[in-house]
C-alpha cells in the first residue's frame, strides 16, 4: 500500500510555534498524534492545543496519543492557552484534549475555563473545541456549551460496526451521536462538527449510514479523512481511498445536508478549521 509523502520543510514560523508551546508547556495534538500537516499548520503560525495533559485515559486503537495514567490538571493551563493565542495573534483557535475518565466531570469544567480564558484575553477570537464524549453526561456537555465556543466538534471516528474494534470500550457510536445532539439542542446556533476516519475496513454503505446519522444529530460540518497507521501498535490500514472516492463521498455528504464538508486524505478535524467554519456560517446564514 503506497504511503503518503510528506515534505519536511521547517520554516521560521514553525520554529516560533515550536518554541512557544514548549516554553509554555502546552501540549499540541499536532505532536501528540504525529500529524502529517504539522509543517503546513505550524509553518502558517497555527497549532491545535491539547489540554488536560498529553496522556489519555482511553485506548482507542487508531490513535497515537500517549495512553495511561494522566498528570494532574494544571490550573494555569487555561491562562497559558489564552496567552499562546495572544502571542501567536490567532483570530481562530482550535482546542482539543485527551480523555480524562479519571476526573468526575471528565474535565468539562477545565475545558470551559479554557474557553472563557481564551475569549477574555482575546475578545475577537473564534474558538473551536474538539471535546471528549464525557460518557454522554449532559451536565458536562452543558458546561462546555455554556462557556460559549463558536464551534463544538466531537468525533464519531468510524462507522457503527467498527466502533467496538476501533475505539476504546468506554466510547460508543450512539453515545457520540448523543453528545452532538445534546450540544445542538442546548444551543441551536452553535456550529457542530464531526470526523470520520476512512480506511479502517468500513463499507461504502456504512459510511453513508454514519454520515446520515451525524446529520440526523444536527451536525453542520463533516470531515472525511484517510486513516494512516501511526505505528505498529495501532490498527493496520485496510484501504487507501483515492481522491475520486473522497469526491464521491463529499458529494453524497452535501446531498445529505451538511453545510460544509472537508474531504481529503490528509484532512484532520482541525485542519483548515477557520475556512470550514467561515464557509459553514456563510451557507447557514444564506439558507
Amino acid at each position, binding site marked *: 500500500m503506497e*504511503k*503518503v*509523502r510528506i515534505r519536511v*520543510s521547517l520554516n521560521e514560523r*514553525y*520554529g516560533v510555534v515550536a518554541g512557544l508551546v*514548549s516554553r509554555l508547556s502546552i501540549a499540541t495534538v499536532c505532536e501528540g498524534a*504525529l500529524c502529517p500537516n504539522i509543517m503546513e499548520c505550524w509553518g502558517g503560525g497555527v497549532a491545535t492545543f491539547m489540554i488536560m495533559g498529553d496522556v489519555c485515559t482511553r485506548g482507542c486503537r487508531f490513535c497515537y496519543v500517549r495512553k495511561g495514567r494522566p498528570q494532574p490538571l494544571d490550573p494555569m493551563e487555561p491562562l497559558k492557552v489564552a496567552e499562546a493565542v495572544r502571542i501567536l495573534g490567532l483570530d481562530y483557535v482550535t482546542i482539543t484534549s485527551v480523555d480524562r475518565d479519571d476526573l468526575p466531570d471528565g474535565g468539562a469544567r477545565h475545558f470551559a475555563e479554557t474557553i472563557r480564558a481564551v475569549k477574555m484575553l482575546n475578545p475577537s477570537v473564534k474558538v473551536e473545541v474538539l471535546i471528549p464524549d464525557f460518557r454522554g453526561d449532559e451536565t458536562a456537555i452543558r458546561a462546555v456549551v455554556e462557556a460559549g465556543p463558536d464551534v463544538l466538534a466531537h468525533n464519531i471516528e468510524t462507522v457503527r460496526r467498527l466502533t467496538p474494534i476501533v475505539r476504546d470500550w468506554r466510547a460508543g457510536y450512539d453515545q457520540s451521536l448523543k453528545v452532538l445532539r445534546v450540544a445542538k439542542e442546548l444551543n441551536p446556533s452553535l456550529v457542530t462538527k464531526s470526523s470520520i476516519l476512512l480506511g479502517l475496513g468500513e463499507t461504502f454503505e456504512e459510511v453513508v449510514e454514519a454520515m446520515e446519522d451525524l446529520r440526523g444529530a444536527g451536525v453542520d460540518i463533516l470531515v472525511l479523512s484517510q486513516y*494512516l497507521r501511526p*505505528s505498529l501498535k495501532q490498527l493496520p490500514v485496510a484501504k487507501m481511498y483515492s481522491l475520486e472516492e473522497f469526491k464521491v463521498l463529499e458529494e453524497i455528504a452535501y446531498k445529505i445536508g451538511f453545510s460544509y464538508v472537508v474531504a481529503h486524505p490528509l484532512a484532520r478535524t482541525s485542519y483548515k478549521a477557520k475556512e470550514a467554519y467561515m464557509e459553514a456560517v456563510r451557507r447557514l446564514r444564506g439558507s
Partner: protein
Amino acid sequence: MPSKAIRVPEELWPRRGGWRGRVVSVLKKPGDRVSRGEPVVEVEIEKAVLVIESPYDGVVSEVLVSQGSPVEPGSELMRVDVVGEG
C-alpha cells in the same frame, strides 16, 4: 568551507520523539551540489514517507546512510561543505 550535518529533524513533532524509520532512498552522493530546500533523503515511517530537505547550500562531502538504514530523530544523514559561511 564549514562542514555541517543534515539530520532527521528533531524539530519535527518536537516533544513526541521516539518514532523510528528507515531510509528508502538517498537522492545525493558525495560531490553533488545541494541547495537549501532540496530533497536529499527519503525516510519511511509507519505513517508516511518523509522527504528530508537540505537546510544548506553546498557540496555533499559524505553520505552516512544507505537504503534500509534505520534512523530516528536526530540521526545524521549526510555531511555538506556549506557554501557562503565560515
